[in-house]
């Protein structure tokens, strides 16, 4: 049962602190998101800049870049995901413990970007793993990454701990292991995980070409 904000402020003035379990649980979760130390291309340089003194991602409780997926909560897909690298990215995501989040950073990570029509680049990492926040840009500025991070924090903060919308780690039925694509003779097999990336509904001709 949420406390009314006005009442909370009034009680605060009287020296009484009121909260709920879900509020304090989510407050803890959102302020200690540890990213994985993991860069794929030029976006990684912007990610590194975000952690340095000028932009200082430490203000958001995310300064601890862990070099192991077992200790990390957040995967920042910073750069081009080639088809050769994609199975390793999915495998690393599988090795992360819940709760875990994904930020797809930059044009390449969200769609393939300038390399979309190449033979070797995956057309967006959201074909294989669920992505929480997409950032456009080539590469996005550190401010954009900070904004994505704040968006993720707001998303965590708003998550109810019970019901259908509850986070995956509180849902015993939720799928935790995402199939790693095989490197086949002509392409990755399968080319897309339909559970994560369903086929978009067909758009009537002409509507999307304006």
């Amino acid at each position, binding site marked *: 049962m949420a406390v009314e904000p006005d009442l909370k402020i009034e009680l605060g003035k009287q020296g009484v602190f009121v909260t709920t379990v879900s509020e304090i649980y989510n407050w803890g979760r959102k302020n200690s998101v540890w990213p994985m130390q993991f860069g794929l291309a030029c976006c990684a340089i912007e990610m590194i800049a975000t952690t340095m003194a000028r932009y200082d991602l430490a203000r958001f409780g995310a300064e601890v870049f862990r070099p192991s997926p077992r200790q990390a909560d957040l995967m920042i897909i910073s750069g081009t995901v080639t088809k050769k690298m994609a199975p390793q990215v999915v495998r690393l995501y599988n090795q992360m413990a819940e709760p875990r989040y994904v930020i797809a950073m930059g044009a390449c990570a969200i769609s393939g970007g300038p390399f979309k029509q190449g*033979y*070797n680049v995956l057309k967006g990492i959201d074909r294989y793993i669920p992505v929480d926040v997409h950032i456009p840009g080539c590469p996005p500025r550190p401010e954009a990454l900070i904004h994505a991070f704040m968006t993720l924090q707001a998303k965590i903060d708003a998550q109810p701990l019970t019901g259908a919308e509850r986070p995956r780690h509180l849902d015993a039925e939720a799928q935790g292991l995402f199939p790693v694509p095989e490197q*086949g003779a002509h392409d990755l097999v399968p080319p*897309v995980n339909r559970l994560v990336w369903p086929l978009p509904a*067909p758009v009537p001709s002409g509507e999307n*070409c304006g």
Partner: protein
Amino acid sequence: MKTAEEIVAIIKAALPDAGVELVPNPSPSAQHSLLLDPKSAVAVASFLRDDSELALDFCSNATGVDWPGKEIAEKVKVTKLVDGVETIVEETVKRVEPGYLEAVYHLYSVKHAHREIAGPVVLRMRTGNRADRVQLPSLTPVWRSAEFQEREIFDLFGIVFTGHPDLRRILMWDEFEDHPMRRDYVDPDDYEYEPTPHDEVLKRAEANKAEATA
């Protein structure tokens, strides 16, 4: 720096049996190249490197070119029986000129301090065809810097370099079977969703859409 014509003359004087030809470049850059016979290519390359006058000791770049087969229409005069009378008829005969793959090497001399501005000495080698006779001798034993680039040519064009110390794919995975830089390569059709399709991608996206709605 010597011109390509002079280098051909030097090679022919030193190695009379070597197969070397000049491939002229008619464009303003006039960057002529040397076409080597694969049989004697390693001997010629070693000579270019070791000769004190040329001393081409640095291979800066190696790449591939795909020349697909060309269909050529020719008009031929043929004698034919038309209504019992022998007449000369002009007929169009089509023949296919077979394609080939080409490996191109750019050489400089560090000893003689060649500058980029003068342009490299360009070597070319051609395969027999584009299907089964794709072997060329590796020049990695002569210039070690060609090792990764020859692997890349093998990966993307499918030229097999005999004598290469470690010929594996370098960019694509080992299970991959195609050669993406060939002109007839067809990339996998994974254009299910395109926000702003155009040209070839628009055709594919529409075909996929029709398939999804059918």
